[in-house]
């Protein structure tokens, strides 16, 4: 079986910011060694200031490393051929307010050297996908933060990238929008794309990532699959469908001193919210 080249690979990667005189001021990233494999969703997790964005900037060639190396598709991150295969959504939405959504997509499409027909087709698809069809001819200055975020996401996919780097993709989005972004990440994975997801929202990462790396103050604390890292072999969960009192009593007596708790499972707030909003939406539709 052929060994697949990692999409992203860092070896002892480090970045120290310096002052005007070149004196070290802040070690933002220290000795980071990780690999991201083709087709996986990899989460970069950590509190603010842990070095997540610095890592992304190094992987995009926007910063030069002070130590170590970074490889994207086996090449230098600054290589324009590499950038041709990357879609990137920054932490904040930096777009031109004087352009419309269509013009924004067209501009970024041209940066990738796409022809007009391809740009038009992809723009239509992506703008529809992020739910901005109704506002595609409005200037971005009139967009809400969430709308701008959705367009930012759309622009990051205009080149049909092999690697999508998403820095806090759900920031500024309502719960529905966040859930849609997570659904999108799953769809990207299903279509064979590699996704690097950077977030400090643990639930987001847990929901969609195959593997995660946890950073703290520029250092890598842990790296591995979500299941491996979160697995707790000291405990077991037993799920029962519609148990009556007798069954529950039987379980309690069988477990004896090993039992921790017996309680009905709770629905997650996000899925509950999505369900009632969807129900309200369908009621409104049927009324109208």
């Amino acid at each position, binding site marked *: 079986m052929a060994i697949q080249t990692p999409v992203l690979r860092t070896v002892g990667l480090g970045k120290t910011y310096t002052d005007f005189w070149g004196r070290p001021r802040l070690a933002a990233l220290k000795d980071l060694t990780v690999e991201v494999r083709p087709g996986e969703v990899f989460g970069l997790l950590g509190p603010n200031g842990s070095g997540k964005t610095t890592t992304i900037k190094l992987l995009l*060639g926007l910063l030069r490393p002070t130590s170590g190396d970074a490889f994207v598709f086996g090449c230098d991150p600054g290589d324009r051929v590499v950038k041709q295969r990357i879609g990137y959504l920054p932490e904040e939405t930096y777009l031109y307010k004087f352009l419309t959504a269509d013009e924004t997509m067209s501009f970024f499409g041209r940066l990738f*050297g796409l022809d007009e027909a391809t740009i038009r087709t992809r723009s239509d698809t992506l703008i529809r996908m992020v739910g901005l069809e109704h506002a595609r001819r409005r200037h971005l200055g009139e967009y809400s933060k969430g709308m701008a975020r959705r367009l930012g996401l759309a622009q990051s996919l205009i080149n049909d990238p092999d690697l999508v780097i998403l820095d806090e993709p759900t920031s500024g989005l309502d719960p529905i929008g966040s859930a849609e972004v997570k659904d999108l990440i799953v769809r990207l994975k299903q279509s064979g794309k590699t996704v690097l997801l950077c977030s400090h929202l643990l639930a987001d990462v847990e929901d969609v990532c195959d593997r995660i790396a946890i950073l703290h103050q520029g250092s890598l604390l842990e790296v591995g699959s979500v299941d491996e890292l979160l697995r707790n072999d000291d405990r077991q969960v037993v799920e029962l469908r519609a148990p009556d009192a007798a069954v529950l009593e039987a379980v309690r007596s069988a477990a004896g001193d090993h039992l921790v708790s017996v309680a009905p499972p709770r629905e997650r707030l996000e899925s509950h919210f999505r369900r009632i909003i969807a129900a309200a939406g369908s009621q409104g539709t049927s009324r109208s």
Partner: protein
Amino acid sequence: MKGLVAVARLGLKEALRARLWLAFVAAGVVLMGLGLRLGAVDEGARLKLAVVGVMGAMGFVVILLAILAGAQQIRRDLDARVAFLLFSKPLSRLGYLVGRWLGVMIGLLIGILALAAVGTGVIALTFDRTPEPAAVVTPSTWERVSALGERTPIATDAQRQSLTGPVGDGIRWTLTNLPSASPEGIPLLVKAMVRGTDPTVMVDECLVSIDAAPSLDASPLVLTVDSDSPYGGSLPGQVLLRHRDVNRDDHRQDFVRLLIPPAAVAPDGTCLIRLTRLDARPLVVLTKDTSVMVTGDGGGLYVNLVRGGLVLLAVAGLLASATLVVAVVAHLGVSLLAGLTLYFAGSLLWTLQEALIYERLSAPVRRLMELALVLVPDFDRFTVAARLAAGHGIPWSVVGEAWLAYGCYTVVFLAVAWIMLVRKEF
């Protein structure tokens, strides 16, 4: 390359959608209006002021927008971190920089075309006519000719010749590539500096004869003064030259106007013009390029305003690239200040030249000023407004010369800005 074009298009779109340029264009129109309302002795002078007003307005708009637009766009991209997103795409930093510069230049070019049209229209409506700047053909060679017909070559680097000898001595210029003559003939303009040989006697005019021939073998045809000439009329076959300083070069006021008959021009467009002094008292000083010239169709006012605008655009390109350099590393205010400082420095180089001539300066200061004269671009080198006002057309060669002169600086500034942008981390 596609990225460069995309950024240039973006810059143009931004320039057109931003309302800032409207204020500058409005100010330009006001300047044009002021140029039309300035009082002058006659209509000819008012027309000159109007042309200067239009060119001045174009210069005002083009220079200020060049300094402001490029720096503002780049600074905004860096401050608002849009550049962060742009450089994550396959867009080279050189492509981004040149695209930004090109976007500003295309925007300014549109402004020049529009302002030249407005200016031409306003002048035509106000004066019921537009001045017609003339294309000029200057002599390719010249030689001295004595009263006995002896010919003496003049050194190629000599720009002036004084006629002080006996009556009958003169100068012969060779004009080549003349336009095909109309039946009325080709207009010939002649002027000279005339002084007395005796300092106690005031002399400012000299009687001369001017003839033309297609070749040395052909018998020359004596030229007569055109009825449109502002001065110079005298007895048939004679021309009364009045003193005109070297700085006076208004086609309508400062030159004797004659007509070269078609028979005096060879089929290949060659014509020999001979000026012979008929009065021994005055000293006549002639120059190779500015004493004798043939004028032709210069292409109309609009075309010449556009060519003048293109010369201004070359200056604007330099200033835009210089402000880009500063904008990459400093705030917008500093960038604007740097652009304006360079413009003022380049417009006031003559003060340095005068100071070097007339002031007592210490050696280091003198060296510094000499260095500034070499390094700082001279924005007064192509006086397009004055040329147009004096009736001179702006030939494409002047436009090319300006782009060559200022383009070198532009390339250097863009290269420096590129190096700084490449070194910049985001």
